[in-house]
């Protein structure tokens, strides 16, 4: 592999590792697993580095590896009946996570969503990513994403309305 490629890869990882950790943590809800996901995703990114076709930004392309790795890790580790308090609460178990009652309730509401809606909501609301980027990451159409986001927000509002909490919404 060319030294420039290694330099670009190293730069990409340095720039985005915190964001990848955040994305992975929200999916796997575990500090250690999130780090493993970032590492495993990086290994796959580097081994596929030359196959990047350039039809998206490198960073968007890289996100896909992290999301796929985290979803796979979550499926692999899903227990039949969990007793892990963090998982029951559906909030990340990490020293770098802090939440008040509103955020805890939001995480609990997000956990009730179907996977696609949950991911779209997280990318849109938490990361404020444009639909075009989310569409590239998840490999779906922007129209579908907007519909998913709309449904997600409606469901979350419905869940949280009893708690008299408010969310920034967007249609």
């Amino acid at each position, binding site marked *: 592999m060319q030294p420039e490629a290694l330099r670009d890869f190293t730069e990409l990882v340095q720039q985005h590792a915190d964001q990848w*950790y955040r994305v992975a943590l929200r999916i796997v809800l575990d500090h250690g697993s999130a*780090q493993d996901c970032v590492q495993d995703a990086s290994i796959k990114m*580097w*081994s596929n580095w030359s196959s990047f076709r350039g039809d998206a930004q490198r960073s968007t392309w890289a996100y896909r590896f992290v999301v796929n790795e985290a979803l796979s890790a979550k499926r692999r580790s899903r227990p039949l009946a969990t007793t892990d308090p963090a998982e029951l609460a559906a909030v990340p178990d990490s020293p*770098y996570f802090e939440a008040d009652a509103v955020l805890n309730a939001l995480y609990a509401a997000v956990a009730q969503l179907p996977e696609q809606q949950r991911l779209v909501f*997280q990318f849109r609301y938490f990361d404020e990513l444009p639909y075009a980027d989310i569409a590239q990451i998840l490999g779906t159409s922007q129209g579908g994403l907007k519909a998913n986001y709309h449904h997600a927000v409606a469901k979350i509002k419905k869940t949280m309305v009893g708690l008299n909490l408010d969310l920034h919404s967007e249609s």
Partner: protein
Amino acid sequence: MNLNTAAPKRRDGIYVPANFASELAERATRAAVAASQRRVRMRRLTWTATAVAAVFAGVVLNLNPQIVPAVAPATELTVDEAWSALEQGDVTLTDDELLELAELHGITTL
């Protein structure tokens, strides 16, 4: 001097300190490069092993051609054997085949 290395909290409540992010990035890069080097080494080893095995097999076969698996010789059947098989009913021929066979061997009576 700003000594605060903690990143600002985001909407998701996750704040990633800069030193943790940088360590994570370093570890991930190292793991990726190491895995890639392992793959290259494995590929080289496999190729070398295959090449050595091929050369060894070539040398052995050259020095000792008897160990080449013999091709089974085609089964040869004498006319008498074929005839007795036919007489014993081990072989069934149609009338046309029988006539053709008789014609071929100049047999006029069956």
